[in-house]
């Protein structure tokens, strides 16, 4: 570590830089270290306390020795995920799940109702009655700190409280990243690395009812800006929450449960008191009921207490593993040399168009974390000496990143975020979609992009983070609106009122977004022929 002049406060160098310290990033850091690579893990919060990992519970584990049938598990995901799951990743995650589970146990992560699960003994596993897939329960909150300790024990360096803002490239290859530390004013940290793993989680529009306000699609956005392919932005995550409580998930969702959490046990009612399906395509049916004029909706607890409900709790986020950087192979590389991704930042399409099995998300984080860590370390070993970003490029990046601090006026990031929320959070934009409304929202978002974002200003380093998060939320909104317009059918968590039918002839395909000059290009990449359902002319 050395101290420089101007805005560059600290410079770091490692073989592998991991961005994000959730389950995926920690696993990647450990796996890269195990090959002998030097590793720095950087997190915009405190690795182990930030991101979604602290809140997860169920972990999907497949093991033929416990009587599990791979074909039946695959069928569950393909049928519920509506055949746009990437079967390579679905299968790889199932097959590796037991190995990853054992590894987590060996690192000290506790599973089972009393945290007493042991290697070699089948833990209690559960799953909704929609198919055979099952998950073991992982203790909440503690695993992420357990993983942090393992990262340090394996000899990686952790840099907390620095938000990575941009990737640095040289000759078309990623050679590091630049970020802003929370605890120094007008300062930039520079990281030089032979390979970078983006494991910065998912992102939303600060919806306030799901604990993801700190996640603003930073990985997708910085990868997009250097030319990476992004996928899955049309498959909205439609979780609901209590209307009267922010982040009600954390407060027991429907009142505090003296037993300590557990799934909601109430039933959903419409404004006339008629029961609604407990789960359709996740909660999208609740949005449909509201759209048909049957709102407001309530959840009625067994004791008769009714809580008002609201959708869009995770507004701006996709079904996990649908959205993100599209992998080029199972080493979690992508179309940009030196760039890897893992966890919610990687669009493996493991689950397809909706949540098809319980606990698949964290499983996917473990598996892709392990693959990305090993893949990035192997790439770094092949790369030889470090490819340093040009000094002028570093200065330019530092100048651009801190420019909002030098603007005397313009638009405040909190206000622009609120305007964005007003534009894209209502259910009728990105949940119950229609081409007309998508285009109308897009016109606004383009205005934000072209007129508001370039004039964002910050009065201190904390607001500088908000500026860059707001910029990324605006880009995420544009990606979602364009991907939603592009997919002219209905499938899973993508519902188009003007194209209400699933169209396997046209859309057994993934939507890919890519930067083209100053514009965004979209194209589809077909699901491979051998992975198509029989009805669509496949061989399965």
């Amino acid at each position, binding site marked *: 570590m050395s101290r420089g002049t101007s805005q560059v406060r600290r410079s770091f160098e490692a073989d592998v830089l991991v961005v994000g310290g959730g389950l995926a990033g920690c696993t990647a850091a450990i796996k890269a270290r195990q090959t002998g690579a030097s590793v720095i893990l950087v997190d915009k*919060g*405190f690795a182990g*306390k*930030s*991101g979604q990992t*602290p809140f997860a519970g169920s972990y999907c584990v497949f093991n033929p020795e416990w009587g599990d049938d791979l074909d039946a598990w695959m069928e569950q995901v393909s049928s519920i995920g509506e055949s746009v799951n990437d079967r390579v990743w679905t299968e790889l995650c199932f097959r590796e799940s037991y190995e990853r589970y054992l590894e987590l146990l060996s690192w000290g992560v506790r599973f089972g109702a009393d945290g007493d699960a042991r290697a070699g003994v089948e833990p209690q596993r559960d799953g909704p009655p929609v198919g055979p897939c099952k998950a073991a329960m992982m203790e909440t*909150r503690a695993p992420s700190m357990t993983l942090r300790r393992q990262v340090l024990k394996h000899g990686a360096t952790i840099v*907390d*409280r620095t938000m990575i803002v941009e990737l640095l490239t040289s000759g078309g290859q990623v050679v590091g990243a630049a970020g802003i530390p*929370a605890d120094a004013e007008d300062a930039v940290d520079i990281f030089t690395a032979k390979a970078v793993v983006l494991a910065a989680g998912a992102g939303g529009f*600060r919806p*306030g009812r799901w*604990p*993801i*306000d*700190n996640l603003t699609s930073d990985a997708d956005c910085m990868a997009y800006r250097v030319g990476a392919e992004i996928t899955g932005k049309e498959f909205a995550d439609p979780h609901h929450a209590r209307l*009267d*409580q*922010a*982040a*009600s998930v*954390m*407060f027991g969702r429907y009142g505090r449960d003296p037993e300590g959490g557990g799934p909601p046990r109430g039933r959903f009612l419409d404004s006339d008191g008629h029961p609604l399906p407990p789960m359709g395509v996740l909660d999208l049916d609740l949005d449909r009921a509201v759209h048909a004029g049957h709102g407001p909706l309530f959840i009625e607890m067994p004791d008769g207490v009714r809580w008002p409900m609201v959708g869009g709790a995770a507004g701006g986020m996709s079904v996990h593993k649908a959205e993100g950087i599209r992998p080029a192979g199972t080493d979690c590389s992508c179309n940009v040399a030196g760039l890897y991704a893992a966890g919610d930042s990687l669009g493996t399409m493991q689950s397809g168009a909706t949540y098809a099995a319980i606990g698949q998300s964290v499983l996917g984080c473990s598996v892709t974390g392990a693959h990305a860590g090993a893949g990035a370390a192997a790439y770094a070993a092949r790369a030889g000496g470090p490819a340093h970003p040009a000094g002028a490029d570093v200065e330019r990046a530092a100048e651009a990143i801190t420019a909002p601090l030098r603007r005397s006026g313009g*638009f*405040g990031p*909190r*206000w622009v975020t*609120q305007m964005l929320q*007003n534009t894209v959070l209502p259910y009728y934009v990105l949940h119950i979609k229609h081409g007309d409304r998508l285009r109308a929202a897009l016109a606004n978002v383009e205005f934000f992009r072209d007129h508001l974002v370039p004039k964002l200003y910050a009065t201190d380093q*904390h607001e500088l*983070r*908000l500026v860059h998060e707001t910029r990324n939320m605006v880009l995420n909104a544009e990606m979602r609106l364009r991907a939603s317009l592009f997919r002219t059918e209905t499938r899973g968590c993508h519902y188009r009122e003007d194209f209400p039918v699933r169209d396997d002839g046209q859309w057994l395909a993934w939507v890919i977004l890519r930067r083209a000059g100053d514009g965004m290009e979209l194209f589809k990449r077909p699901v491979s022929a051998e992975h198509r359902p029989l009805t669509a002319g496949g061989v399965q």
Partner: protein
Amino acid sequence: MTIEKIDLDLCTGCGICIDSCPMDVIRMDRAGQKAVIRYPQECMNCEQCALDCPEEAVTVTPYKTVPLISSWG
């Protein structure tokens, strides 16, 4: 009101809640003695600060108010 208060009589200034907060809401006071609520607007009610404080000095509620919409800002 999200994070409502840090009880300064209970706070020992250990700094745990600052690390627990994913939104950079809490900072140390200038003297480095006590935790202060610096950026309450960003609080997302995740409760981690309250759950992690060894002195139970932090109060978080499930309610959040947002500013009125204004035509510029």
